[in-house]
């Protein structure tokens, strides 16, 4: 028992170096997802029907196929068309494109959650369609979206372990190295799992503080 604890303690420093790569992959992928979703959402809300199929198809495509297959397509498939990406870039890109689909869905659902009465009130005051969304709908929709976005971030952090398969030296990949050298898979993967858990808990706790700061005063009491 004591031996196990010592072993885990001894491999933690090596694993922790993988955390920075895991965070890098997650943060960049989330940012790509956020940027793309921020493009897709207005198209879905404002564009005429002739264009609204575009974001819809994007979402269906990326939600309807496995992330691992998307990753393989980008890393192993694209080189045949002359697009050769290193493993880290390919991993970030695949996760980001995938996350964009989920984030776009989160935004769409949040906007749908704004009651019709808010639109009516804003319009009755003479606001333009753009003003209605900018001042009334988006600020409220963002607050509704926040818990789901945090959830998406945490999910993304865990899914980032998939990029170990194409050789990115993040947390899971470093675990694989250690197993290959020590043959102690149980202890190594327990340590890896614990580090993911600490990461996820840190982020979701941090997010709770932000949510509290942004919450609409009086909101709980009214429900």
């Amino acid at each position, binding site marked *: 028992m004591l031996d196990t604890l010592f072993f885990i303690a001894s491999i933690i420093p090596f694993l922790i170096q993988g955390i920075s790569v895991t965070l890098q992959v997650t943060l960049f992928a989330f940012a790509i997802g956020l940027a793309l979703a921020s493009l897709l959402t207005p198209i879905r809300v404002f564009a005429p029907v002739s264009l609204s199929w575009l974001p819809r198809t994007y979402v269906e495509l990326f939600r309807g196929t496995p992330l691992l297959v998307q990753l393989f397509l980008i890393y192993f498939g694209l080189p045949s068309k002359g697009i050769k990406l290193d493993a880290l870039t390919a991993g970030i890109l695949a996760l980001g494109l995938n996350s964009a689909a989920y984030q776009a869905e989160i935004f769409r659902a949040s906007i749908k959650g704004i009651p019709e009465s808010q639109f009516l*009130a804003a319009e*009755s*005051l*003479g606001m333009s369609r753009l*003003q209605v969304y900018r001042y009334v709908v988006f600020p409220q929709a963002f607050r509704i979206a926040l818990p789901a976005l945090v959830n998406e971030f945490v999910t993304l952090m865990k899914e980032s372990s998939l990029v170990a398969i194409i050789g990115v030296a993040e947390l899971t990949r470093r675990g694989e190295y250690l197993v290959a050298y020590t043959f102690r898979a149980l202890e190594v993967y327990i340590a890896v799992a614990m580090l993911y858990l600490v990461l996820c808990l840190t982020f979701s706790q941090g997010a709770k503080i932000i949510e509290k700061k942004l919450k*609409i005063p009086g909101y709980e*009491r009214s429900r």
Partner: protein
Amino acid sequence: MKNLLLVEDLWASYGEHMVLKGVNFALKKGEKVVIVGPSGSGKSTLLKCIVRLVEPIKGKIFLDGVEVTSPKTDIRSVRAKTGFVFQNYNLFPHMTVLENIALPLRIVKKLTKKDAEEKAKIMLKTVGMDAYMDKYPLQLSGGQQQRVAIARALAMDPILLLLDEPTSALDPELRGEVLDVLRRIAREGISMLIVTHEMDFAEEVADRMLFMEDGKILAADSPAKLIHSLENERLVRFFRKLKA
């Protein structure tokens, strides 16, 4: 006196369901007109059509000489000079009371931030809510929220104030404070079109009353005459039920 509002043969529908079936009426400048009638009779839809929050399918509306229903009319400019008060207040929950009133002044009336806030404070004083300007709507009672909503509508200096059952969502003990504010505003001479079930208030404030049923105006007269009518059996039944 000149007509401020003229509604001619107005028809409106929600999908297959026809809600307004040829409504005609006029409202003179400074006049207070109350609309009563059973639920589903089209009162609220009529109010919303006047600022095209609901698009009519047929008919014409003129407000202050402008044809509201014309596709050439910039409906936003019409809305900017009318005030609309909703049954459920519809304040913006993520903004303070002050911001709720100052925002439209800033972005629609193009006032500076300072002027908008100054005006908002004056309007809040009018409805007795100036002590709550830094609160958020959901921290207030229904009556307080509705008073803020009235201040928001009045801040736009409307030539016509439209009120859609302003006290119907309130507990009986909170209605008084809202009705008091409305009585005070009515004395200022602003033109008002009010959908309400408050008959005492209607009789006190309104110059004229319209009785609506099934998308049409069935009767129009002074409130006293309609409320205490003995001839029109439909009216007698309606007002007796309201009292019960």
